[in-house]
């Protein structure tokens, strides 16, 4: 029997190998369409982990989180498309085409700044009030994106910005099949590895944060803000930091989203999306990284699985499609949300600490 560090190392190598081979497995077993869905799921996981910092660690309920995703996406859309040529023909005759490596930090900074901007005035608010202000903030951003096509066409209104450059790093375009070391990597595979890299980065940062002074301070604020400030924690700065961090991660995933999809419109940033990301965090297990990843994966994949199973199932049972599959799958999704919360109110995979807290609660009551 190998000793413990060896086993951990072995597990890590196995895990890495599985992740690296995953796109080929999905491609071979389920087809390219599913790999694309998995790519989107990775983006959602990144978003969920970003929101987890705000909601899970610092306990600040943010219902407008998708706005930061939108800021990142529009940042990339403006900085890497011919669109700005419409608004400023003299300044940018063929639009702007910056490298991802410049846009990414820019978007993260801008989104983080927006996070502070939202956080600063709302610091005093608690719980539900904060939720509703952030919700309003998200809607304001969306309405502006919808209407900033006049008098200066900045966002192209409801039509959105199309013809966005695909992501390319150091001259390697992610939108074409690449041959590296004799292995052929189609575009979706490349995007998978890119997103995997960033998702891992976010996981790594989250884990380090969680165990740092900052992370512990956030959790102290989450449990009892007054007690935390009595212990000498600067609650104002730390809450702002949580907002900024979460928002920056949102901005980064937005940037990647815009490059991957090649098209952005306000429709992708509705309140429903914010709610979806929040559901991922809460359903998976607030404040627990692996729980949140599970939640993100489940909620991103479930609608697609339902989409592919609802129609054939009806065909098999009744011989024809009786109920509109789109609404049926959302209906089932809603029912699933309710059921999971009724039977696992702390989430599907809560952290060990949280589980212990809840079980002692039961005993003392």
């Amino acid at each position, binding site marked *: 029997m190998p000793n413990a560090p060896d086993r951990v190392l072995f597990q890590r190598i196995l895990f890495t190998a599985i992740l690296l081979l995953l796109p080929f497995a999905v491609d071979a077993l389920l087809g390219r369409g599913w790999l694309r869905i998995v790519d989107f799921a990775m983006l959602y996981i990144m978003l969920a982990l970003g929101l987890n910092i705000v*909601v899970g660690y610092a306990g600040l309920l943010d219902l407008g989180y998708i706005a930061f995703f939108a800021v990142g996406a529009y940042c990339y859309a403006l900085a890497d498309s011919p669109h700005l040529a419409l608004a400023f023909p003299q300044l940018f005759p063929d639009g702007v085409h910056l490298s991802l490596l410049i846009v990414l930090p820019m978007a993260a900074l801008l989104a983080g700044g927006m996070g502070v901007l939202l956080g600063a005035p709302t610091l*005093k608010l608690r719980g539900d009030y904060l939720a*509703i202000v952030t919700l*309003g903030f998200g*809607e304001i951003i969306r309405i502006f994106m919808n209407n900033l096509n006049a008098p200066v066409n900045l966002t192209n209104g409801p039509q959105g910005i199309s013809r966005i450059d695909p992501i390319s790093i150091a001259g390697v375009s992610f939108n074409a099949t690449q041959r590296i070391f004799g292995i052929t990597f189609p575009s979706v595979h490349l995007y998978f590895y890119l997103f995997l890299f960033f998702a891992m980065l976010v996981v790594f940062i989250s884990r380090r944060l969680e165990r740092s002074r900052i992370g512990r301070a956030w959790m102290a604020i989450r449990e009892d803000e007054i007690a935390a400030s009595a212990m000498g924690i600067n609650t104002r700065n730390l809450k702002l930091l949580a907002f900024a961090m979460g928002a920056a991660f949102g901005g980064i995933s937005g940037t990647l989203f815009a490059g991957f999809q090649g098209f952005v419109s306000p429709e992708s940033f509705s*309140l429903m999306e914010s709610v979806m990301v929040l559901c991922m965090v*809460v359903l998976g297990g607030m404040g627990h990284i692996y729980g949140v990843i599970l939640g993100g994966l489940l909620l991103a994949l479930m609608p697609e699985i339902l989409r592919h199973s609802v129609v054939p199932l009806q065909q098999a049972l009744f011989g024809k499609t009786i109920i509109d599959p789109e609404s049926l799958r*959302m209906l089932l999704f809603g029912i699933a949300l309710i059921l999971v919360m009724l039977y696992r109110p702390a989430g599907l995979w809560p952290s060990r600490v949280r589980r212990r807290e809840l079980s002692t609660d039961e005993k003392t009551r």
Partner: protein
Amino acid sequence: MEIFLQQIINGVVQGSVYALVALGYTMVYGILGLINFAHGEVVMMGAMISLSALTALIGMGLSPLLALPLSLVLAIAVCMLLGYGIERIAYRPLRHAPRLAPLITAIGVSIVLQNLAMMIWGRDYHSFPQLFVNQAHQMGGAIINDIQLFIVIAAVCVMAGLMFVVHRTRLGRAMRAVAENQHAAQLMGVNVNRVVSITFMIGSALAALAGMMVSANYGLAHYYMGFLLGLKAFTAAVLGGIGNLRGAMLGGLLLGLIESLGAGYIGDITGGFMGSQYQDVFAFMVLIAVLLFRPSGLLGERLAERA
């Protein structure tokens, strides 16, 4: 000046609807400390049910004078049942769960209701049948029509009735007691579960009425109408001070006025840079401003921070 008066009238009409919906939010929040996110969908269900019932009853050859109240009663009854069911299934089992759990079930419920409505009524807009000649009255140069007049009067009557129930009856006293302190109320012999159920049913009845009003006023109903309406009504409730009945009425009225005046004049103020398409921004701007300067709302009491 006529335009100003017209905007005021539109604002009051819209505001009465917001107020009715906001009352549902505020009553539930006052008693359970919970945002009933599914409330907007109950409004939508009320609108759709009353509209279908009305169309069916008219089709059966009933006189509009009889069909209108009948369909309203039906919508109210169904919505009350719905409100009761929502509380029983999605909220009651989670009363002692972590705070975010009931929020997620509420979101689940509203997704379910929305898609149920889409299955039943489809994605199309449904138009409200034209029953009477909707007469327009001149008021100092501005126009108010019969439906709008009816909305304002009905809203005022219903709100007066609600105030009577809450402040003058045994049930109202029980509701206030539960809102003050659930455990103490229970010790005094109040059946808390029953009071909570009744509160949800009253709120849902108001929502059904509001739903019918909105669809009559705009002549349209749609499976997606509940979402934004619910959001704004919640804003109104916060504006007035959530948990406070008078606050919800005041907040609803104010929000309606701010919206219609804002949408009417924003073009002039910003020199044509922003138009009435920014109408929806106002609600949220107002909300943020109020929360910054008076977080407990206009009529809310200053609450000590709750842990």
